[in-house]
């Protein structure tokens, strides 16, 4: 017995030293890009750093669109063992910045001229108190519609430009026995559609007032009720089986011609390309009708945790590699998103990518670039989730539009 105990204690002692702590000269990176294309793209970054003699300690934690990774991050920070660099989104970055946990990247930013090439709306999520605290990797825009070209052609439908065009197209598809809209009933997917619908219904001022400024009047307005009514129209035109479906499977419905449209962010393109489809020939990508001018976005960034007051050499190298035009192009071609800086050549991108880059640049310069509510770039997580609750309850028939508006006002005020 005692021998056994002795043995286990010594094993324990041996194990205590086997944990891999990031050594000097390494960066430890916490991220949730684990699916094939994303991880391969990140490998480019790893290669860049290795060429400079900097090792890469990988710490992937997938799940819940980054929620799991954020939970793990809290455990790591609490344990006093924060990773060097952490993938993060929107308000999470600002929250960590406000806690004073992030390193100041201003020196790198000044040297590389980030201020001039990163859109202001995006800078708002990468700076705290005038200091750069994270390095943006990409911009995803979320107000896209994906359509099966053959299905549209067969029913004589042109790309809809207005909500009325869209309802007519949906009715035509419905009459033809095709599921008009492919949708996955998960809270974030419902909210992604709601983003675009609200933008289209009330225009950019309304969107900003309701979702970014959380103005009670806008939240409780008739315009909001109209937006919920339009959601009800969309709900009436998805198949019976939408609830709980992964977005990938909804995309597959469009790919297979079972459905006409899907409202989803630019990452949906990867599914089409993976199925051997060609943009413009087999499938179409266009902005949600009535939001042609606007871009709602979310952006992945890497925030750098403070390593004793200064930015380490490795963190600076990582940040500058992330923002380098060659990585921005290589990564975003694979990811489906567009570069976070507007001066990258669009040569390597396909038709949808080129359009996305042009739209982003135009929206950024005309003040039409807005953070996506559904993807945590309009407000705090608590508010975002409170809005999710209402949108999803309404979409699933728990509330009618009038009740949904009332509930929305209440839920947002409780969550603040």
């Amino acid at each position, binding site marked *: 017995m005692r021998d056994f105990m002795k043995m286990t204690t010594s094993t324990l002692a041996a194990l205590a030293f086997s*944990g891999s702590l990031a050594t000097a000269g390494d960066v430890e990176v916490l991220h949730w890009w*684990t699916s094939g294309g994303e991880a391969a793209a990140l490998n480019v970054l790893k290669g860049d750093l290795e060429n400079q003699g900097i090792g890469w300690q990988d710490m992937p934690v997938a799940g819940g669109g980054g929620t799991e990774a954020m939970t793990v991050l809290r455990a790591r920070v*609490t344990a006093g063992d924060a990773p060097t660099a952490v993938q993060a989104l929107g308000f999470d970055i600002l929250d960590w910045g406000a806690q004073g946990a992030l390193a100041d990247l201003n020196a790198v930013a000044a040297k590389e001229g980030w201020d001039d090439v990163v859109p202001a709306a995006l800078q708002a999520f990468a700076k705290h108190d005038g200091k750069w605290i994270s390095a943006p990797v990409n911009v995803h825009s979320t107000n896209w519609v994906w359509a099966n070209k053959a299905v549209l052609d067969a029913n004589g439908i042109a790309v809809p430009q207005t909500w009325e065009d869209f309802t007519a197209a949906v009715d035509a598809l419905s009459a033809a026995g095709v599921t008009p809209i492919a949708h996955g009933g998960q809270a974030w997917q419902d909210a992604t559609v709601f983003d675009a619908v609200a933008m289209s219904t009330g225009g950019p001022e309304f969107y900003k007032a309701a979702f970014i400024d959380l103005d009670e009047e806008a939240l409780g307005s008739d315009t909001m009720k109209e937006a919920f009514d339009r959601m009800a129209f969309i709900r009436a035109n998805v198949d019976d089986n939408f609830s709980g479906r992964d977005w990938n499977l909804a995309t597959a419905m469009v790919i297979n011609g079972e459905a006409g449209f899907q409202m989803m962010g630019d990452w949906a393109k990867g599914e089409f390309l993976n199925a051997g489809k060609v943009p413009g020939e087999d499938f179409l990508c266009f902005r949600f009708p009535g939001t042609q001018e606007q871009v709602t976005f979310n952006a992945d960034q890497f925030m750098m945790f403070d390593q004793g007051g200064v930015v380490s050499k490795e963190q600076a190298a990582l940040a500058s590699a992330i923002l380098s035009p060659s990585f921005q192009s290589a990564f975003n071609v694979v990811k489906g998103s567009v570069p976070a800086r507007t001066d990258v050549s669009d040569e390597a991108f396909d038709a949808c990518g080129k359009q996305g880059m042009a739209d982003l640049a135009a929206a950024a310069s005309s003040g039409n670039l807005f953070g996506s509510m559904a993807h945590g770039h309009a407000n705090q997580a608590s508010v975002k989730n409170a809005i999710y609750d209402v949108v999803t309850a309404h979409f699933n028939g728990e509330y009618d539009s009038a009740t949904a508006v009332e509930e929305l006002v209440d839920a947002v005020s409780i969550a603040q």
Partner: protein
Amino acid sequence: MAAATQDSAIRTGRVTRTLIYLVLILFALFYMLPLYVMMVNSVKPLSEITGGGMMSLPDVWTIEPWKKAWSTAQIGVEPTGLRPYFWNSISMVVPAVAISTVLGALNGYVLTKWRFRYDTILFGLMLFACFIPFQIVLIPMAAVLGFLGLAGSTAGLVLVHVVYGIGFSTLYFRNYYAVFPTELVRAAQIDGAGFFQIFWRILLPSSGPIAVVCIIWQFTNIWNDFLFGASFASGNGAPMTVALNNLVQSSTGVKEYNVHFAGAILAALPTLLVYIVAGRYFVRGLMAGSVKG
């Protein structure tokens, strides 16, 4: 097997027996269902799955998904497959199960054969500890591990699993030793045997069945844990479930369902094996004490 040789006193008629077999087989099919779904989808190309044939047998059989899940699938930035994480899990599970089982056995021994004042209350407190939801201990646990310098190490994970495992292991051994004749212990004491000698020579040799129950229980729970593994292991030291999660969860990437299912079965193989190999001893172990007063 104890089961087959035991002479049951119940006699049943032919019709009843047929019905019984029917019910038993129906339930067996019910239990097999998810495994069937996982198996058939792990051996067909992705296009058949996204094409809608999730429940049917494959048109084209392939073992590519299995190979990919094991050795080439993307877990993090490196396409390593699940293979390297297998050992991580083993090196965490084996010490954690061993330590919590040994502690459980000793605790059970003390609580039944060396009783002292308030021992029942202490046991009650240990048992109640089984019910604590793991989500709430995450942050304070991180602080303690950081304080102990065990953050991001396998030793830290082992500690966590031992802590939250001893409640059940103590329960199993206590109930088992409770029906073990105390006279034998007293007799050994009179012969001058010490605390550990009695445990080693008298209780331990007959603890096989309950040890099997305890080991199966702990092994399954610790192997399947995700939350602690993700939070308290370093990237390269992550256990199998964390790697599996990285394989199957992707928010904005293409989902290769066939590879996911193959990976899922691979990750579950050790626990499945434990149940199948040790399953027969399992019922015997439960029978030998843990469900008796």
